[in-house]
């Protein structure tokens, strides 16, 4: 409804869809009129008529997406102030070669395509008597400056992160991969959004089967709009119901470049700072770029810490609940006594307590994420007070459970990419542990691991190099040996790929 009302001044996607432009008309004014008509007088579409050596020239651009000064200096002034003569034929070519000043200019015969370019920030120049128009690059699309990414922080890595502008992102990668082997293929996805995707890979290193498979899956995409990386994920993933994904995501150009060098395929998407990397292994969730900068012993230590943190965050609350309900004998008696005394004053059963406190934690976290930053402190204080103190004092939950949840919450943030599966699996294991004890948890864990082992996308097993066991790759798995011994491109996708397809 709101869109309809606004259609008087703004462009509505339905309007363009229904409009057939056809070829560029020889009558320059007619072209301008068609564009105006298509956009129904939308105020940001500017059409201006002028004369160049007596020949009618029409300029069309979308205000806000273009640099007005560039239009004036590089296109309008040279054309409109030209006092010389224009050749009878090929006047447009003459303008392009002698008058217009831009590295980015092309000719287009299809008016529809030209309008697409107009919507991407180009200036269209129609010349009377020419069946072509000039698409003149004067884009000035507003964009965020390059900042350090929030979601993918490295201690010693570069401070640059991707922005929403695909060109900027490409530049960030280009400057890291100065080789002609670095190949980019452009695609458009989304019937309405026409979002540009850049398929990046390293020629010679990428596996052809992988490349073809990715392209095929992208071809099968059927979205009206592609507004984020997540839209593509479910197409690139085979096991859509799995908790885990084999499609990686990064905000960092250095990580992206490193992965491309390993023979993977990177996908940059216009309008989002998140790039996708295919395929991604389970172990990569515990590897960071810092690991290759830090000393090997420390890198190994940190990877083990991250892996343990993952295990703790998934299993600890469930194990605590199951020990508290079924296997009290495992605890040393002094510890059991302390826990019993503290838990005996609480209102709920251990399972319910764990579920409640996790629910509260997740709610506070979600609120913290979505709320205006100005009231963030207030929510933090309330959260800390409610969970930390009042709930224990009121006898709603026990202090040991609070410690478990706090520890779990911290651990779950160590591998940010795994946060989603962790938070759901944790709840699942609390329920299983609360009703069936450690044995139920173990059956669940076995089922989880077998399902992880079954994940093979693009002939790459998710659990590689552990299973199928690849001794060579273990040197850069949970342990990381020195760079000299590591060898080149250890995690090259061709090494990981299964060779014996039936």
């Amino acid at each position: 409804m709101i869109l309809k009302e606004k259609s008087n001044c703004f462009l509505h996607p339905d309007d363009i869809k229904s409009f057939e432009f056809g070829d560029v008309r020889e009558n320059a004014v007619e072209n301008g009129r068609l564009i105006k008509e298509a956009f129904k007088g939308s105020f940001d579409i500017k059409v201006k008529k002028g004369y160049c050596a007596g020949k009618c020239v029409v300029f069309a651009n979308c205000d806000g997406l273009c640099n007005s000064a560039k239009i004036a200096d590089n296109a309008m002034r040279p054309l409109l102030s030209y006092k010389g003569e224009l050749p009878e034929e090929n006047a447009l070519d003459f303008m392009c070669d002698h008058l217009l000043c831009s590295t980015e200019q092309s000719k287009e015969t299809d008016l529809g395509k030209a309008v697409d370019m107009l919507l991407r920030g180009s200036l269209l120049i129609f010349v009377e008597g020419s069946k072509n128009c000039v698409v003149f690059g004067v884009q000035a699309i507003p964009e965020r400056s390059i900042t350090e990414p929030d979601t993918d922080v490295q201690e010693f890595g570069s401070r640059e992160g991707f922005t929403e502008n695909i060109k900027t992102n490409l530049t960030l990668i280009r400057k890291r991969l100065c080789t002609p082997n670095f190949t980019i293929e452009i695609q458009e996805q989304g019937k309405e959004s026409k979002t540009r995707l850049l398929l990046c890979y390293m020629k010679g290193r990428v596996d052809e089967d992988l490349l073809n498979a990715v392209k095929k899956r992208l071809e099968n995409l059927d979205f009206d709009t592609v507004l984020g990386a997540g839209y593509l994920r479910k197409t690139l993933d085979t096991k859509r119901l799995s908790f885990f994904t084999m499609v990686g995501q990064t905000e960092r150009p250095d990580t992206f470049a490193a992965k491309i060098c390993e023979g993977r395929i990177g996908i940059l998407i216009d309008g989002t700072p998140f790039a996708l990397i295919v395929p991604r292994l389970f172990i990569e969730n515990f590897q960071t770029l810092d690991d290759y900068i830090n000393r090997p012993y420390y890198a190994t230590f940190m990877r083990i810490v991250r892996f343990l943190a993952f295990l703790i965050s998934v299993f600890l609350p469930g194990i605590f609940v199951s020990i508290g309900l079924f296997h009290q004998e495992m605890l040393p008696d002094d510890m059991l006594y302390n826990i019993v005394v503290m838990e005996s004053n609480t209102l709920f059963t251990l399972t319910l307590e764990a579920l409640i406190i996790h629910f509260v934690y997740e709610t506070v976290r979600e609120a913290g994420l979505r709320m205006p930053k100005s009231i963030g402190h207030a929510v933090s204080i309330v959260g800390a007070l409610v969970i930390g103190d009042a709930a224990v004092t009121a006898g709603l939950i026990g202090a040991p459970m609070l410690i478990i949840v706090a520890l779990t919450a911290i651990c779950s943030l160590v591998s940010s990419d795994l946060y989603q599966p962790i938070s759901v699996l944790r709840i699942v294991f609390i329920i299983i542990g609360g009703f069936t004890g450690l044995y139920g948890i173990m059956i669940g864990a076995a089922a989880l691991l077998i399902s992880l082992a079954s994940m093979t996308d693009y002939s790459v097993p998710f659990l590689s190099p552990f299973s199928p066991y690849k001794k060579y790759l273990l040197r850069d798995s949970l342990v990381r040996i020195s760079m000299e011994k590591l060898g080149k491109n250890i995690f090259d996708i061709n090494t990981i790929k299964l060779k014996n397809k039936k």
Partner: protein
Amino acid sequence: MKKALNSLKAIVCILIILFSFTSCEKAGTELSDLMIIQGIGIDTAQGGYKVTVEILNNEQSGSPSGDSSSENKTKIYNAEGETVGAALMQLTTKSGNKPFYAHNRVIVIGQDAANRKLSDIIDYFERNFDSRASELICIAKNTDAEKVIRAKLLNDTVKSKILEKMLEQSYKESLVPRMRIIDAVNAIKDDTSYICIPAVTVRKNGENEDFTLDGCALFDKDETFSMYLGSGDAQGLAYLNDEIKKGFISAELQNGQRATFIINKGKTHYKITKENGVFHYKLTVDVSCDLEEVGGAEYFSTEYGFMEELKAAVGKTIAKKMENTLTVLKSEHGGDAVHYGKRLMLQDYGSYETVKNQWDKAFRDSKTSINVNVTIRRIGEETFHSKK
């Protein structure tokens, strides 16, 4: 395929929910519903047994740490039943909580109960899921187990914990043998061995009471109480049984003064021969010890002669202890508490088979020769500084 897979998944989910919310829920016990038993005393009662248990008082208010709480750390409950198991199950009616044996530290058997069959008393603990096979057993010497469990110690502590520590430490110091459920069952199943269980007494100490370990009780092959061994004899058992851990020994020197040694490690080696139908046990004890104290010595030295004197004194003392213990074990009420029969079985099964049924006699007739090899590791720092 997909449809069937989905239906299978749905069935799995339903089943998980089903069994989650039905059977297994009953198996779990909330922490606050546990009766955490720390020690169990077993006495006889009219037509059965009386159990006294010491449990952790988990209904304390406030923080469990610190002694400011006016409430006691433990509670004591009694129950009676026709069997030990029945008596223990009666406890639920007294407290409303579920007895939890996994943290039980010690089982104290009263003097009267000791006169009954041992296997009747420990069978419940052998079968019970919670109960650990490594629970310690001791005998309340000449008194009821209840008195031990209810002893008024100086501080408000967990009495069973103290008793457990005493038993463990004394075993490590080679003062008394250790008897766990598993050891008791193995001894009962052994055709030749007597069972030795540490004995504890409660002694008055002003207004309060103290536990004292006082040797051990000997049970015959019929699993009934036979006699008590004194503290000195109990020490000899460790050397005879190859259970020398740490400990100390006090030996008399040639000049009549005494020297005290700390034992670091020890090992007893056995060699069994048969001479004229009599088994001859040649025991070689290797002991390594440190000199801690020499009474009345004005002069410390590492001279060869002095060292030899020390070694001889230690060896003599150990051998004497072992001989004394053997003498007691070979007395009228004694028996093979040193696994001579079992060792014979391992070494010469044929001979063992022939004497198995008359092992008591064969044990009494057996001869033992003891050779102690002593190594003195240190004689104290003063050696190098205090020359006159």
